């Protein structure tokens, strides 16, 4: 599966580039790709929900799941950036990346 070249970060910062928080952010963003592109995992009719086959309601459920995941990534990212900006201000050196 060709994952895009825009991996969550290609950083050039001074503080460690890969931190646990950033790994979590990355996982939040990659999870929808794994779940949706692995079609075999959900290509079935049962269990149906109010008459809608599994295949359809599962994917629609993933709209909500991926929204929650993106929101989590957004919140964590903001926190990460704020912490880094503060550190950068004290050491007078910014090298963040998005």
């Amino acid at each position, binding site marked *: 599966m060709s994952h895009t070249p*825009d991996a969550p970060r290609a950083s050039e910062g001074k503080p460690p580039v890969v931190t646990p928080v950033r790994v979590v952010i990355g996982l939040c963003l990659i999870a929808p790709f794994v779940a949706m592109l692995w079609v075999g995992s959900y290509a079935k009719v049962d269990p149906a929900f109010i*008459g809608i*086959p599994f295949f359809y309601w599962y*994917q629609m459920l*993933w709209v909500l799941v991926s*929204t929650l995941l993106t929101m989590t990534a957004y919140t964590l990212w903001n926190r990460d950036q704020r912490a880094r900006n503060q550190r950068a201000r004290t050491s007078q050196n910014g090298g963040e*990346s*998005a």
Partner: protein
Amino acid sequence: MKDGVNGVALAVFIFFFLAVTVMGFLASRWRRAADEQSLDEWGLGGRSFGTWVTWFLLGGDLYTAYTFVAVPAAIYAAGAAGFFAVPYTILVYPLIFTFLPRLWSVSHRHGYVTTSDFVRGRFGSKGLSLAVAVTGILATMPYIALQLVGIQAVLDVMGVGGGEDTNWFVKDLPLLIAFGVLAAYTYSSGLRAPALIAFVKDTLIYIVIAVAIIYIPIKLGGFDEIFAKAGEAYGQTNPATGAPRGALVPGEAGQWTYATLALGSALALFMYPHSITATLSSRSREVIRRNTTILPLYSLMLGLLALLGFMAIAAGIKVDNGQLAIPQLFETMFPDWFAGVAFAAIGIGALVPAAIMSIAAANLFTRNIYKDFIKPDATAAQETKVSKLVSLLVKVGALAFVLTMDKTVAINFQLLGGIWILQTFPALVGGLFTRWFHRWALLAGWAVGMVYGTVAAYGVASPSQKHFGGSSEEIPGIGEIGYIGLTAFVLNVVVTVVLTFVLRAAKAPDGIDETSAEDYTADAGDKGVQVELPPATAGAGH
């Protein structure tokens, strides 16, 4: 199909269209700027739009004839295979989250308005910038064609022209009307009209969706009944192909196609000129990220609309041209006056994005081809004139796609555009993260992707069409059927990487990079970040 013209529905439809047209003309007075002749005014609405309006414009990328007509029609025709649009829109948001903020930052530091601007600044290559501009304009045409097909389907079902046994003029009348309305409307009021009308459009669409997904299933006896009937219908053999018509769940063989279509479409969506324009006009990079957490809810609506395809089968709708299935379903299920409202929603929902797309393509031409290559010292009035003219030409191009391609599978229009626009991904998104790629390698990769994609798509036959009959083909080396656009994209990347190694080893001259690392993370309020981007072409330096 009911015989003759559906008078009530047509009257309601015309009422909404007239209301919208009047709004369109009044729009040119809304927040009017001093100089009406400037391209900035016509093409970017004077750039006075706040976040709210901007995102209404962006919503237009999602709610088009694609959502309302093409996706449900694909489901109507083949079942599960058409549902790939839902994972497609799910995957779009993590992608936007990751790369668009960087594009926003660098664009606001350097005054880039189009993707071509960025590519030229990053790689110092006019050739690459031209390739990106040409691809953007070309890829927009079939996407506009899809909108024309949507409007045509609605007019057809209402009984305006259409039908197979009439002469060509009456038969193509709905298409000609759709084209005329779109052209007149864009030409006269530029981007202001679609921005204002977007509110009306979204309201109409929400009402119709809400009613359709509650009222129709109840009338048809619930989802159990709907899917039972649909499953039965898909099991029947299609005389044209000798295989079953479709399936409720993709079989082993269809899964590669499903996944590659979803991924390819997701990668392609935000390469289109109109999406980039709308994104760049947001107030800060934070706004972009915040919106990616809300916008996915649009996808839920898309999923529900897609289910209309099953409902059309369960309701016993029988049409040869799948695009007519949903309008026909509305006409059968709804009282005439509400069918008119629904048709107006589809019609306006196709008109607004088509206008936005043709304006974005025209701006791209004027800024990155006309100004860069043909007439660098053009005046503002000349630029506006060229842009208006090109926006017409783009629509004529779209018309050519409608007339030459198989209209019964309209989703292919969008997928064909995707094949092309995807080939600008390595230069654009690659360029946002690394300067390692060599400009000549990117150009070669682009050319390989374009040629392979076009040739492969040309070679796909469908029961009714010898060429451009579909968008999926065997993936060389893997043997599964997959989306041509994604295969071409992978080829593109491979060529780019290999040639970059070669060119770097040969010490080929690297272009000048006018951007620096911190440009990609700057936010509003930082030093050197322009709150307002310069006019699309009106003479501002960059």
